């Protein structure tokens, strides 16, 4: 494993490319920027990237096609999607099609920094997992997840528990603090649900797998945020919600049972 992390940013908007380059450089990553998918593939052939950040809306080849192309070429570099036309559909679709994360534009420096670190760690973790040097606890088979980050499980009473996956928590490093919504708050699918501060000072936002009204939250997390790390799928649940668009939104979630094949 090399220490130096390589990032590729693909965006037709030069100012965005430059911005991301600035942020990545500030964090000590090496980064290259291109303005279209075609050039991106040229770069990918030259260099081994650890993380790709791509805009969705680009002329000629858009982010979704880029993602499909990467998969077709069996390039497993993690990809984070970003777009200026931020719709929930865009975000959920990109996660459904294999992007590891989604960051809406305009993003702040801190938001991007967190996302970059998560993405890099994600790549490292997956590699380690594949080589058998680390364990990732998969979510229980009856759960569903949005991308790799959040899970949901429908309880017998019709309410839904949501939480963060082991992989997501592991990409954060050590959990230090959580900032949660109060009951009666509204969650929207693919919008931030909880802010988790890691030991390294970065604040990460976990996106909600479903839309709904919060009817209960796990108060234990406030006193003991590390519960998220210890038992992410049971004691470390975050909210209990009543989903509003359950049937529609469920279609965009990935069943955890598919992770065990």
């Amino acid at each position, binding site marked *: 494993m090399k220490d130096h992390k390589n990032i590729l940013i693909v*965006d037709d*908007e030069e*100012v*965005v490319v*430059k*911005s*991301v380059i*600035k*942020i990545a450089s*500030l964090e000590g990553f090496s980064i290259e920027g291109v303005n279209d998918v075609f050039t991106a593939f040229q770069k990918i052939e030259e260099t081994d990237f650890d993380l790709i950040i791509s805009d969705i*809306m680009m002329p000629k080849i858009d982010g979704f096609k880029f993602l499909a192309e990467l998969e077709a070429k069996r390039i497993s570099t993690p990809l984070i999607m970003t*777009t*200026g*036309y*931020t*719709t929930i559909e865009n975000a959920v679709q990109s996660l459904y099609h294999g992007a590891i994360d989604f960051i*809406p*534009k*305009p*993003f*702040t*420096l*801190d938001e*991007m920094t967190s996302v970059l670190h998560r993405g890099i760690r994600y790549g490292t973790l997956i590699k380690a997992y594949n080589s058998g040097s680390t364990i990732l606890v998969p979510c229980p088979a009856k759960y569903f997840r949005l991308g790799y980050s959040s899970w949901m499980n429908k309880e017998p*009473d*019709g*309410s839904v528990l949501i939480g963060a996956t082991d992989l997501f928590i592991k990409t954060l490093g050590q959990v230090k603090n959580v900032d949660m919504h109060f009951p*009666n708050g*509204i969650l929207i699918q693919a919008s931030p649900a909880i802010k988790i501060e890691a030991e390294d000072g970065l604040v990460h936002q976990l996106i909600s797998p479903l*839309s*709904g*009204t919060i*009817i209960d939250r796990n108060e234990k997390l406030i006193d003991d945020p590390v519960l998220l790390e210890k038992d992410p799928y049971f004691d470390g649940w975050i909210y209990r919600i*009543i989903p*509003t*668009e359950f049937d529609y939104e469920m279609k965009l979630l990935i069943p955890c049972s598919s992770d065990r094949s």
Partner: protein
Amino acid sequence: MFRKISLKLILVVSITVIAIIGVYSYFNIKSQSDVLLSEVERHAYQLSETVKNSTRYEMLLNQQEHIDAIINTIGQDPSISGVRVLNKEGVIIYSARKNEIGKMLDKHTESCYACHAENKPLERLPSKDRTRIFRTNPDSSRILGIINPIYNERTCYESDCHVHSRNAKILGVLDVSISLKEVDEQMRYNEIRELFFTIISISVIACIIGFFVRRWVDKPVKELVKATNQVSTGILNYQIKELGEDELGVLGKSFNNMTKKLDETSQQLYQSTKMASLGQLAAGVAHEINNPLTGVLTYSSFLLKRTKDNPEMQEDLNVIVRETMRCREIVKGLLDFARQSTPKKSLIDINEIITRAIAVVNNQMKLNKINLVKEYDTTLPKITADANQIEQVFINLFINGIDAIGQDGGTLIIKSSRITLSPKGITQIKNAVCAKNHSLMDTNHKIGGIPSVKVKVKSNSNEGFINIDPIYGNHRNYFGISLGNISQINLTCPTCDLSLIDKSNKCPECSGPVYKIPIANQGFIEGCASFKDNWQRWEVIDLAGESKFVKIDVTDSGCGIPSENLNKIFEPFFSTKGQKGTGLGLSVIWGIIDNHNGTISVQSEIGKGTSFSIRLPINEMIKHI
């Protein structure tokens, strides 16, 4: 040729008239000519009898000169075309025409044929068959001939002259022929008269039909054609003036209804297209703006990090970051507007929604120098509603307020509060019906801006309509007739006349009759049918008990709404602003609030301002799991 309805009608009616008059005339003329002919026949017979009798004596005396003279004299009469006496052998022995005398007539000539048609001659012939009508040549007028047989009598064969033997039965024939010229003329005159009458009738009928078709068909059809042309040129709201009550009148009304609906739909379409393109525009703008914003946000944050030891610069940079973040929120709002997804009801904080709505119109308020007064009740519970829709309601109400205030500044007060109300005075009668399920709701007569309940009233000998206030417990009833001092009253359904009076009940206040009107799915509403007092009862609603509401008042100090418009402002596309309107009309606001089981009402005073009150129900429990 016969493209016009009037001409077609005239043609058909003319043919009918011709047929009727033709048949009538045929029989009429026939009977007339029969009468005339029989008259002539009778006359001819009498004449021939007279001739026979007057020559009888001379015959007996065999004074041939005398007979000749008599026949001659009679033959002088212009109407008599011939008088002649034939003997048994058919020889003309006397005649008014001298040249005929001595001629022998063949038995087959028309004068003889009647008796000699068969081999054995007839001796007696009925007088009808003795006549014959003939023409001497095709151009001459008709002639009626009558044969009068001269029978052998005792005096004849016993006479001194002994001309006739005793055995002969018939001695000869007197043949008188009378010209039918006059009769024919009379008949021709009658025919002409009938023809003339037919022509006159047809002309008169044509005129009458033409006039009324023009009046009843042509004019309305022209009006309709004009109207359809107007509609095709794009004037969709063209209305035809009253065309009367006939089929075309009904067509006209239906046309008016159609154009009204067409106009509404096209307006709605226009509105939604406008909203859709606005949405696309917003989305495009958002996409374009977000990229440069990313740059601004990143670089300013970056500078912020690099200048940690320069507090003065930090302060300035913080402003840039903060304001850029604000831009981000605005663009996000724009995108939210563009999306306008299906209604998603969730628990919302109404104060927060109002604040969000204010943010949208804040700039415009400042431009119009509007002093915004917020009087929030911060203890309000959350309500179940679609945040986006409710936000739009407020944005539109605020824009209306801003427009009403105008450029010169004013005050806009937004007040939220919690109220508990008894169902009386707030519950709307939405679907009153009669027992046969005819709707009693009258959208043409609104009370307080909402359709009223229309019932037919019969009191004493008077008959009319009453529009009952659609708000339970309110009594702004409209009386179409004066009830005065009534002894008897009956309220009925305007459609089927079924009585709405509950005979088993008496008004607990005045002991008078009580009406009982079914409300679809909501039991019955009862009330004092004589309207002497305000007693009213709606059991289903009363049992539901008091309701809790969040009430939001939006009061502007603007120009106000004329009272005649107050009832109309919630109607679709009622606007005093023309196309300046911002998209959703008050009707849509009304629809949104109504969908949330809330109410919206308006009070206004010209020059002082307008106040909209929205009530949205609070449901304490989340019931859907």
